[in-house]
């Protein structure tokens, strides 16, 4: 099993004795490349978070994004937490993410288990029906027309149901379920457990790693949902966070209730730079990802690889 080898490999910490010792230049080169790679990702994030915490003075002194900590203030967060538009979009994003992830997980786990049993009736044609959608889709316009025809325009469910099932995720979970020992399942059946009971009490408890990763994938997808909101939600009172960032940070429109002007220039009288407020909203969308990430990260390889390169 790939994952098993990967695990034991990580624990090998010593250089095998047949390998030539590393050259100092080689080591330095490697270290430099890795440091640059890490910096390219980490420095912009650091600047985003720091700018959101900076006073107007610090932002002005830096001329924009802040790299070196100057004056620190939570004023930007106080402003966005009292801003009706931002708070409402935060609630929308959280709601879409929670409801959507629950729906997606239920549908995915059920389908994955329903298709994972060897020799079950018609599982091959059904599987084929699902996989076809990975390679051919009707495209944007027909999907838009169908969702609109079903009343999805201006409705929150248009951000959830059209993207609720990922066939790839079903395949990942299914591959994991199919690895559950058949003896264990047979034993459960003999003891009188039906398929529902077996799924709940035998299969799910042994598949926590993969369900955690897949749940993270779904949750991140809902949290990041943007285009469907652009397509289906015309009213900014229903927008999720990503739409708010797009409109008020990326496009630089004035955010209602922050006293920020359209050109993104600073008001001399403002206590806080508009840039700090914008970056505070950006940081707000980073926080949930950063909170969940450490708990799921060690399972990534397990979740991704099983579906992707088994065999």
């Amino acid at each position, binding site marked *: 099993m790939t994952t098993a080898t990967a695990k034991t490999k*990580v624990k090998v910490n010593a250089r*095998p004795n*047949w*390998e030539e010792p590393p050259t100092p230049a080689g080591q330095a080169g*490697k270290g430099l*490349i*890795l440091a640059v*790679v*890490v910096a390219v*990702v*980490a420095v*912009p*994030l650091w*600047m985003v978070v720091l700018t959101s915490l900076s006073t107007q003075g610090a932002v002005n002194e*830096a*001329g*924009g*994004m802040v790299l070196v900590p100057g004056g620190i203030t939570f004023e930007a967060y106080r402003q966005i937490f009292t801003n009706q538009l931002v708070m409402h979009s935060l609630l929308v994003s959280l709601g879409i993410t929670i409801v959507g992830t629950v729906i997606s997980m239920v*549908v995915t786990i059920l*389908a994955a*288990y*329903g298709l994972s049993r*060897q*020799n079950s*009736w018609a599982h091959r044609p*059904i599987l084929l029906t699902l*996989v076809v959608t*990975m*390679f*051919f*889709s*009707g*495209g*944007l*316009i*027909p999907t838009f*027309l*169908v969702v609109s025809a079903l009343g999805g325009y201006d409705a929150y469910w248009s951000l959830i149901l*059209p993207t609720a*099932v990922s066939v790839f995720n*079903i*395949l990942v979970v299914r591959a994991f379920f*199919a690895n559950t020992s*058949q003896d264990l399942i047979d034993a459960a059946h003999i003891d009188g457990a039906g398929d*529902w009971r077996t799924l709940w009490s035998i299969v799910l408890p042994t598949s926590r790693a993969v369900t955690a990763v897949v749940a993270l994938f779904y949750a*991140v997808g809902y*949290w*990041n949902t943007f*285009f469907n909101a652009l*397509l289906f939600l015309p009213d900014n009172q229903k927008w999720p966070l990503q739409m708010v960032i*797009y409109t008020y940070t990326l496009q630089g429109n004035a955010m209602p209730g922050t006293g920020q002007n359209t050109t*993104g220039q600073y008001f001399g009288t403002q206590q806080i730079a508009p840039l700090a407020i914008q970056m505070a909203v*950006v940081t707000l*969308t980073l926080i949930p990802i950063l909170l969940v990430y450490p708990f799921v*990260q060690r399972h*990534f*390889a397990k979740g*991704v690889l099983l579906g992707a*390169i088994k*065999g």
Partner: protein
Amino acid sequence: MTALQEAPAEKANASPPPQRKNRFRRDRSLLLMVIPAVVLLVVFNYVPMFGTATAFQNYSIYAGFLHSPWVGLETFRMLFSDPLFWHSLENTLVLSLVQLVFYFPIPIALAMLLHSVLNTKIRTFVQSVVYLPHFFSWVLAVTIFQQMLGGAGALNQFLRGHGLATWDIMTNPDTFKILITSQVVWKEAGWGIIVFLAALAAIDQQLYEAAAADGAGRWRRMWHITLPGIRGVIVLMLVLRLGNVLTVGFEQLLIQRDAVGREAAEVLDTYAYYYGVVNANFSLGAAASLFKGVFSLVLILAANKIAHLMGEDGLYRR
């Protein structure tokens, strides 16, 4: 997907197949479990698939699908005579090619580099940092790029501060394709290494030892053991990439299209969006989508065929 193949061990375990009817009765609950997924896919994938028929209509939102007049290939004639359509096709293909050359090798190289680092702590740290941007939305990633490289971004503050000429990368149509590619590298290259790291870990260590005993240095070992060892995965990733040649980050381009203008930024997907949804010319948009869908399918089958000819598995086995 290869995940479709059943493990042979399971086959040996399975009891002899019972009668068809009995199997149906036995598997009722399994079938019940599949229903929600099938319903969702039918409604939001299969119905739209048949909805592509609007490409052969002069679709009007008031008449609806059933009452709009059929016009045969007229929509496609309009599509193919629109220079902007050909321009967006060209942009799409050029972007794909640039990404193939400048993006594709990076995760492979990075994975090999990281695999050679023996210190577990450093490896884990680098991995957790570089995976992170994969979980950001494009809105977030582009916002960060704008704050770093845009006209008022960190780079230009630095240039201005040192009396140098400023350089607005975000709105320059000439360098736009490089910008798009570097955004893809920033966001996805780290995540892309996962598959290659696993493939590297699966290579038999004894091969390296034997090669070293035979006098092969580290570069020759890389060339004769490491690269052939991950060839299958590289080919698989290439097949997937080729099948997606006509798909280049829709959201990513959509949100940056206005900053550089459609000359540089219009691709097939954004073309379909602007004609279909924004200008409400649904039939033309559907025709552009259908053109893309059919060609992508042909491409992925062709790429898979090539993989088979090279003696690799590709997406599915023969």
